[in-house]
């Protein structure tokens, strides 16, 4: 087939390098953001609990994801639930990355970031909004949180809200544990929950 032969001829054209593409991709992300068409910006961040995926809409940080969740699946879910206009665009995540870095360095106890709660609705959102009330280094039981949000019998729903927290670490669901002291479930796995609590106890 001559097509392959003729296409081979064009192999001699100068190659497109990764570095050239990286420059163009950065420029695209910047322009998309400036023109208001970058619905979701994301980056990854290396931390003691693994490489976290951070994603933000124009309204604020919308998702923090652990490696066990599968970053590709998380981005795919964001495409379906928020918008497919998603780019790797670290700049929008600079403040979040800085604060999370400071937190893991033991230099930060509360987060001061605009948050987009759109991935949690109803009761789950109510629970998530309450979490920052549990201070750094403290813990609360599922039952305590249920009572605090006005539904004392809803401790299982509190557990679900924590297990599906779209903003772990930043919204401290790791501080919610079982009444007997058992750590309970965690989106990032039990080891990550232990590490966060130990960090805060230090």
């Amino acid at each position, binding site marked *: 087939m001559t097509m392959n032969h003729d296409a081979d001829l064009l192999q001699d054209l100068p190659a497109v390098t990764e570095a050239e593409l990286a420059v163009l991709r950065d420029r*695209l992300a910047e322009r998309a953001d400036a023109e208001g068409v970058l619905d979701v910006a994301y980056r990854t961040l290396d931390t003691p609990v693994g490489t976290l995926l951070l994603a933000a809409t124009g309204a604020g940080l919308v998702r923090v994801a652990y490696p066990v969740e599968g970053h590709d699946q998380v981005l795919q879910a964001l495409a379906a639930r928020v918008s497919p206009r998603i780019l790797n665009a670290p700049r929008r995540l600079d403040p979040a990355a800085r604060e999370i870095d400071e937190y893991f360095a033991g230099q930060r106890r509360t987060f001061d970031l605009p948050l987009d709660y759109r991935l949690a609705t109803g009761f789950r959102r109510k629970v998530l909004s309450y979490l920052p009330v549990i201070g750094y280094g403290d813990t609360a039981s599922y039952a305590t949180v249920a009572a605090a949000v006005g539904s004392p019998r809803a401790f299982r729903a509190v557990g679900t809200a924590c297990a599906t927290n779209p903003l772990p670490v930043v919204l401290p669901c790791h501080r919610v544990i079982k009444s007997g002291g058992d750590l309970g479930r965690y989106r990032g796995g039990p080891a990550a929950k232990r590490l966060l609590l130990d960090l805060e106890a230090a």
Partner: protein
Amino acid sequence: MTTSRSAGPGRLPHVTPKTPFEAVVAEHGATVLRVCRAVLGPADADDAWSETFLAALKAYPRLPADANVEAWLVTIAHRKAIDVTRAAARRAVPVADVPEPPAAGPADGRDIDLAGALAALPRRQREAVAYHYLAGLPYQDVAAITGGSTDAARRAAADGIARLRKTYPGVVIPDGENS
């Protein structure tokens, strides 16, 4: 009831989820840049690439899930390349002394620079070669993008390749001319 599991807000059945646009850039970015370079030359290709992907990002949510993404991107790139060419023509200032064209290469008239040889083709041939051979689009799609018939697109690509073979020696080094 706050304790019951929420049914979820209007879950849509059978909607093929669209991949994040980042994946589209990762998959097609290099090919679209090669196409832009082939059609416009390296100087204007970056602009055309940027305009193409910005326009694509804007329109992406409305793209049908079963669309051929590469053909869609090349269609946008074709229009953006025309825009870039027009803008360059508007900017061009007439000069009194027209500079000599770059040296034509070896004395046998062959052009050792394939990109240069490609740039010397008529635009229609350049487009047909780029869209068919670099982007891998069938001639029917090439014709839909450039206008004209499928046969005309096939001829333009064939003529372009034939001309390139004449002007660009490729890997064939003529005997006894390695001085």
